[in-house]
C-alpha cells in the first residue's frame, strides 16, 4: 500500500482525494470511490495507461485482454460461456466498469497498475494473468471436482470420476465409441484446439492467446509475447540534476564530513613516508619486478643421478659418392659392384652403391625403406624386456619385534626415596652386598653411610679431598669400603656389621699389617688413631690421581686406575698382604675403567677407544673389543660373564657379546648427553645407564643360556632422576643387589632410589 501511495505524492496523480493524510489507505480510497460516482478517477487512469501502452508495446490485443480478465471476474456467472471470444471481450470491456461492487475490487488492481504506469513512463502494459483453470472453475463451480491430485486410473472402475465440494459424486459423462468421437470431431470446428481435461472429464477449447503461448514455448521464446529481455536501461540516478528528483531527501551528512577511514589510510601512508618505508617518486624495484616472473625450468636444483641430455652425434656431411650425381671417379666399376655384391652385407664398407643421375627428379625412391622399417620393428619386438623389481617392504615389518615393556616387569619405575644431606655433587655411590646400606662419596669431601630402607644418614666421614669413587667390598663376610680421593685410596669399615663380620674384618687388617713387607708401587700407611676410631683402616698413596677402584669378587684384590699415571696407571692391590702390583709395563692408552671378570681370571681394561681383555693366570692378552667410539666412560660386565656393556661420552651404549665378535652386538643411542655410568643388575635381567642430561635409562637385557639365542635388549624406562647442574646430571647409578631397584646420584647433591 505504501508502494502505491508514494508515487501519488511525488507526482500529481489524477486521483487526489483532497487529503494529505499519511495514514490514508487504499481501502479508504476504494470506499470513497465506490461511494462517489466511481467513473471520475479510474476511467481516466485506465485511459492513461492504455495510451502509454499503445505507444510502448504497440500491441492491440493486450488492453483487450486486460479487460478480459476484469470481465471474467465479474461476468462469468451471467454468461456461463466457456469459450470466450476475443470480440466478446472487447464488448464486455466497456461495460464491465459499470458494475459497482465488482468494480471496486478490480479497481484495486487497476489503481496500482495505473500508479506504476504513470511513474514509469516507459513501462510496458502488464498483462492480466491467464489462469485457464481458474476460468473454467468459476464457469461451472457446482461441478468442480475436488478429488485432488489422485491418479485418475483409480476411478477407472467406478461410474464417477470424483467428488464435488459437498462430497457428491461427479458422474462420468457418457462416452461414445470411436465413431461417435470422430463424428463429433468432424462437427466441431474447434476440435483442433480442444484438449481433453481428464479431471473434469470434458474438452477444453484453447483460446487464441493460449495457442499463441504454446507456439512460443515450442519455439523456445518467452511465453509472454510482450516480455522484452532487451529493455533499454533507465538511468534513474545520474549525474544530471533532475528538476523533479526521485528522492527529495536532503544530502546525508556523511557526504560532507571527512571520512575517518580515509584519514586513517592517509595517515598510514604518511607514517610510512616519514619512516622511510615508502619513498615517494621512487620507481618500483626492478629486481622485484623481475622476481615476480621466473622460469620454472630455469634452476632445476634437483640433483640428477644420470645424464639428462646426450646430444646426438653430428651427421657428417654428404660425401661425393653419396651425391645423386657424383663425379665419374667415384662411380664404381662393374667389377667393384660385383665385388660389393659378393661381400657379406655386414662386411660391406658402405651399404649403397653410388649411382649417377642426371637430375634430382630421376632419383628413385629408397628401395630398402620397407626392409629397414621391418628390421627396426623386429629389433624392437625382440629386444629383451627387463622387469625392474621395486622394493616394496613395509617399514614397520623391519622393526624387530620387541616384547611390551609391561611384560618385562619388574623394573624400577617410580621415585621412592631421596637421600638428602650432601652439599656438593655426588660422584659415586655403592650399595653393600646385603642391600641394607648405601655409601656415597661427594665433592664436599665427605662419605656418607645411609640406611636404604629409611633414607637415614647413619654416618659421615670427612676427608681432605673430593671423593672420586667409592665401592663396597663384594665379600659378604667382610665389611669394607674402598674409596678413592685425590691420589689416595682409603679402606674404611662402617662398623655396622655384626660382631663376627666386624672381627673378621679387623683380623684381616691386623694380619695384613703384620705380614706386610715392602712398598713397591704404592705406599700403604696406617691411619692416625683419631681416624682409626672413625673406621679408617688403610691409606694407600699412589703417584697420580686415582679415579676408579674396583674389587675382585672375592674381596681380597682390588684394582685402581690413575689415567695419567702412564706406566703405573693400573695397580692391583692385595688387601690380605698389603701389596700393590703393576701388571702392565706400558699403558696402551688413557685407561678409563678396569674390571675383574665375575667368574674367570680375566681382567678388562677400558682405554679411551678399546677394551682389552687379559688373562691374569697366563698373563696374556686375550682379546680386544672395538666399540668404534671416541671415548669410553664406563664398563659393566654381565654377572654371567659373557656379555659386557660400555657407556661412552659420545652418548652411546654398546653391548658386546664376547663369544660373538669384537664389534658391538648392539649400540644403543638413548641418551642426549654423555653417558657417565652403565651398570648390570646382579640378579634381574636389567641394565641401566645414566647420563649428563640427568636421566637414567633402564633396559631389559636378557641373556639366554642357549648359545644360539642372541641377547634380548628392550628399553623399558627412562627415569628423570636429577637436575642438571653445571652441565652434569646423573653421575653414577647402581642397582640394588637383591631388588629391582636402582640408585642414582647426581650433580644436584641427591641420591635417589627408584623402585
Amino acid at each position, binding site marked *: 500500500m505504501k508502494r502505491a501511495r508514494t508515487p501519488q505524492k511525488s507526482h500529481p496523480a489524477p486521483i487526489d482525494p483532497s487529503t494529505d493524510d499519511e495514514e490514508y489507505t487504499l481501502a479508504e480510497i476504494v470506499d470513497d470511490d465506490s461511494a462517489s460516482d466511481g467513473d471520475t478517477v479510474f476511467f481516466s487512469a485506465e485511459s492513461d495507461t492504455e495510451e502509454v501502452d499503445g505507444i510502448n508495446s504497440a500491441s492491440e490485443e493486450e488492453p483487450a485482454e486486460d479487460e478480459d480478465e476484469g470481465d471474467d471476474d465479474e461476468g462469468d456467472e451471467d454468461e456461463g460461456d466457456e469459450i470466450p471470444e476475443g470480440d466478446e471481450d472487447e464488448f464486455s470491456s466497456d461495460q464491465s466498469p459499470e458494475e459497482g461492487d465488482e468494480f471496486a475490487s478490480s479497481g484495486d488492481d487497476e489503481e496500482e497498475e495505473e500508479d506504476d504506469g504513470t511513474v514509469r513512463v516507459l513501462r510496458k502494459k502488464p498483462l492480466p494473468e491467464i489462469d485457464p483453470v481458474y476460468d473454467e472453475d468459476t464457469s461451472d463451480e457446482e461441478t468442480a471436482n475436488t478429488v485432488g491430485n489422485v491418479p485418475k486410473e483409480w476411478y477407472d472402475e467406478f461410474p464417477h470420476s470424483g467428488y464435488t465440494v459437498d462430497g457428491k459424486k461427479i458422474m462420468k459423462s457418457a462416452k461414445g465409441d470411436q465413431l461417435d468421437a470422430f463424428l463429433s470431431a468432424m462437427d466441431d470446428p474447434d476440435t483442433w484446439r480442444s484438449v481433453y481435461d481428464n479431471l473434469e472429464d470434458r474438452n477444453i477449447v484453447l483460446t487464441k492467446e493460449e495457442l499463441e503461448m504454446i507456439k512460443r514455448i515450442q519455439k523456445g521464446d518467452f511465453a509472454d509475447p510482450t516480455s522484452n529481455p532487451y529493455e533499454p536501461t533507465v538511468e534513474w540516478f545520474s549525474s544530471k540534476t533532475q528538476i523533479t528528483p526521485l528522492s527529495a531527501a536532503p544530502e546525508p551528512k556523511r557526504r560532507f564530513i571527512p571520512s575517518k577511514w580515509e584519514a586513517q589510510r592517509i595517515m598510514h601512508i604518511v607514517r610510512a613516508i616519514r619512516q622511510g618505508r615508502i619513498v615517494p617518486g621512487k620507481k618500483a624495484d626492478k629486481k622485484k619486478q623481475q622476481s615476480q616472473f621466473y622460469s620454472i625450468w630455469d634452476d632445476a636444483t634437483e640433483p640428477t643421478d644420470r645424464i639428462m641430455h646426450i646430444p646426438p652425434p653430428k651427421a657428417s656431411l654428404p660425401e661425393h659418392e653419396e651425391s645423386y650425381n657424383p663425379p665419374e671417379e667415384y662411380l664404381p666399376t662393374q667389377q667393384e659392384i660385383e665385388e660389393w655384391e659378393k661381400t657379406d652385407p655386414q662386411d660391406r664398407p658402405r651399404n649403397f652403391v653410388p649411382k649417377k643421375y642426371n637430375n634430382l627428379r630421376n632419383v628413385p625412391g629408397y628401395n630398402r625403406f620397407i626392409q629397414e622399417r621391418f628390421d627396426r620393428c623386429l629389433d624392437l619386438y625382440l629386444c629383451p624386456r627387463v622387469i625392474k623389481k621395486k622394493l616394496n617392504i613395509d617399514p614397520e615389518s623391519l622393526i624387530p619385534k620387541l616384547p611390551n615393556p609391561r611384560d618385562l616387569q619388574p623394573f624400577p619405575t617410580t621415585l621412592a626415596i631421596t637421600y638428602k644431606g650432601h652439599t656438593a655433587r655426588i660422584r659415586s655411590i655403592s650399595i653393600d652386598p646385603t642391600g641394607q646400606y648405601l655409601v656415597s662419596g661427594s665433592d664436599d669431601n665427605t662419605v656418607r653411610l645411609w640406611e636404604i630402607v629409611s633414607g637415614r644418614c647413619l654416618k659421615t666421614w670427612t676427608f681432605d679431598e673430593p671423593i672420586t669413587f667409592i665401592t663396597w667390598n663384594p665379600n659378604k663376610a667382610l665389611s669394607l669400603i674402598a674409596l678413592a680421593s685425590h691420589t689416595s685410596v682409603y679402606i674404611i669399615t662402617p662398623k*655396622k656389621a655384626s660382631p663376627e663380620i666386624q672381627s673378621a674384618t679387623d683380623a684381616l687388617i691386623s694380619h695384613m699389617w703384620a705380614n706386610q713387607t715392602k712398598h713397591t708401587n704404592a705406599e700403604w700407611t696406617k691411619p692416625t688413631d683419631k681416624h682409626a676410631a672413625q673406621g679408617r683402616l688403610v691409606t694407600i698413596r699412589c703417584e697420580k690421581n686415582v679415579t676408579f677402584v674396583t674389587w675382585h669378587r672375592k674381596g681380597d684384590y682390588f684394582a685402581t686406575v690413575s689415567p695419567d699415571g702412564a706406566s703405573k696407571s693400573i695397580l692391583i692391590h692385595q688387601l690380605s698382604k698389603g701389596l700393590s702390583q703393576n701388571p702392565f709395563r706400558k699403558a696402551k692408552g688413557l685407561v678409563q675403567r678396569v674390571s675383574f671378570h665375575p667368574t674367570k681370571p680375566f681382567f678388562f681394561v677400558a682405554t679411551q677407544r678399546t677394551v682389552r681383555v687379559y688373562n691374569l693366570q697366563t698373563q696374556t692378552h686375550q682379546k680386544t673389543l672395538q666399540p668404534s667410539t671416541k671415548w669410553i666412560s664406563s664398563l659393566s660386565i654381565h654377572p654371567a660373564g659373557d656379555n659386557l656393556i660400555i657407556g661412552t661420552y659420545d652418548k652411546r651404549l654398546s653391548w658386546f657379546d664376547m663369544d660373538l665378535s669384537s664389534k658391538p652386538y648392539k649400540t644403543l643411542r638413548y641418551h642426549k648427553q654423555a653417558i657417565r655410568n652403565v651398570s648390570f643388575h646382579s640378579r634381574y635381567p636389567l641394565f641401566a645407564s645414566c647420563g649428563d642430561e640427568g636421566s637414567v635409562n633402564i633396559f631389559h637385557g636378557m641373556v639366554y643360556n642357549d648359545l644360539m639365542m642372541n641377547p634380548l635388549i628392550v628399553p623399558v624406562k627412562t627415569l628423570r632422576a636429577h637436575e642438571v647442574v653445571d652441565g652434569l646430571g646423573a653421575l653414577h647409578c647402581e642397582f640394588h643387589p637383591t631388588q629391582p631397584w636402582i640408585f642414582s646420584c647426581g650433580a644436584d647433591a641427591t641420591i635417589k632410589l627408584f623402585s
Partner: protein
Amino acid sequence: MTTEQPPSPATSTNKVGDIQVQVRFRTRQQQHAVTDTAILVPARLRRYGLSEIINHLLGRTATDTESDETTLKPIPFNFLIDGKFLQTSLKTYLDNHGLSTENIVELEYVEATLPPSPAAAFEHDEWISSVRGHSSGLVLTGCFDTLGRVWDRSGVCKAVLKGHSGPIKSVSWIPESSIAERYRFVTGGQDAKVFGWEYDAEGNKSRILYECVGHTGSVEGVACSPDGKELATVSWDGCVLLWNTDPNDVEEAEDDNGGESRKRRKLKSDQGADSSVIPLKRAQKRLTGHVGPISCVTFAPTNSAMLVTGGWDHTVRAWDVEQSTNTVTRNCEKVVLGMDYSGENGLIVTGHSDGVLRLWDLRAQEGQTVKLHLSSHTNWVSSVRWSSTNSYTFVSGSYDSTIKVWDIRSTTPMYTLAGGDKTKEQKVFGVDWVGEYIFSGGEDALLRSFAAKV
C-alpha cells in the same frame, strides 16, 4: 526401638519420572534396627538421602534448634550393598553392576564414623621408627637417636630408654604381663640387639630386664604373642628367633662363652646407667626359610602358635611356632614392609614397596593368593595396623607422608591424615591404632595422635 510405619509405596510423594527402587534395610547394630519390610525409595538417593530415611524411620528428626527431649538427633549412617560401601547413588550402583531396579535391594547400614581428628603431637629429637600404643594410654616410641621413649596421653615423656647402640627399629608391648602398673615391652634395634624392658608407672622408673642375644643383623621387627609368653623377632639376617618373655629365664653373664663379647658387654654395662650386668636370654627357636631379610612379624591374635612374617624375598610366610615349621608361603612381587593380622576377620594386611596394600587370607587354599589390592598410597607403605575395635578398618602409614584409614568394604581410603610435611617428603615409619586413638611417627620426629572413633 520405636519404629513407625514406613510410608507405603502408594502414598510416597516423589517427583514423576524418578525411578524408584524397593529397598530393604538391615543392620547389625540392633539399637538402630528398623522395619524389615521393603520400602520404595528414589533411586537417585545417595548415602545422605538414605541416611535421612533411616533417621526418619527411627524418629530421629530433631534439628539443632530444637531442644525437645523426646526427639533424638539424627545419626549419620553408611550403607553397604553386597558388602561394599555405597559411594554413588543407588541408580549409578545398579547401572554399574547391571542390576535391575525391579528387584528388592538389600542395604545394610552402619553408623558412620567421624573422620579422625588430630589430637596431639609430641616432639622427639630424631625420626621415629616405630610406635606402639597401650590400652592404658601409654605410648612407646622407638627412635633413630637410639633411644626409646614412653609417653603418656598428656604428652609427658615418662621414660627414656637407653640401651641400644643403633637406631631402634621396632618396639612392642608385652601384653598381659603387666602386674599392677608395671608395663613390660621389648625393643629391637639396628645394632642387632633386642632388649626387654619394664616400666614402673608408680616409681616412674624403667629398667632393662634382659637382652636377647642371637641376631646377626639389624632387628627389623618384634612381636609378642597374645598371651604374652612368646616373643618373636625378625632380623636383616633372614631368620626368625623365638624367645620366652619370662624375665627370670635368663643366663648369667658369666655363662656366656664368647669371651670377647662378654668383655665388651661388661665394659658397656659399666658405662651404662644401669650398673648391674644385663641378664642375657638365648633364643628358644630359630625359624629359617626366608631367603633374604625379614622386615615384619606378627602373631595371630587368636592363636599364639601361629606367626606370620613378611620379608624382602617378596613372601608372606606363616609359621607353626610349636613345631617350628613354615606352614604357608605366599608370594607377591614386591617387598613386604609392614603387616598386621586381624584376629576378628583372620585377614592379613601387608604394606609393600609399590604403595599397594594387599589383603591375604592364609586360610584359603592355593589359587587366589591376594584377596584384595588397595592402592591409594603413592610411595612405600611402611606400616599397617588393624583397628582394635572394628574388624573392617585398619590404618596404613606410607612414605608419601600420609596416613590412610581404610575400610575393607571400600576400595578407596575412608580418610587421609597428614603424617608429615608432604613438600619435604617426610616419611611415616610407624602407625598404631589402639582403642580410639591412631598414633603415628615418622621423619618429622613428631608422635602424632588422632582421635578416631570407629
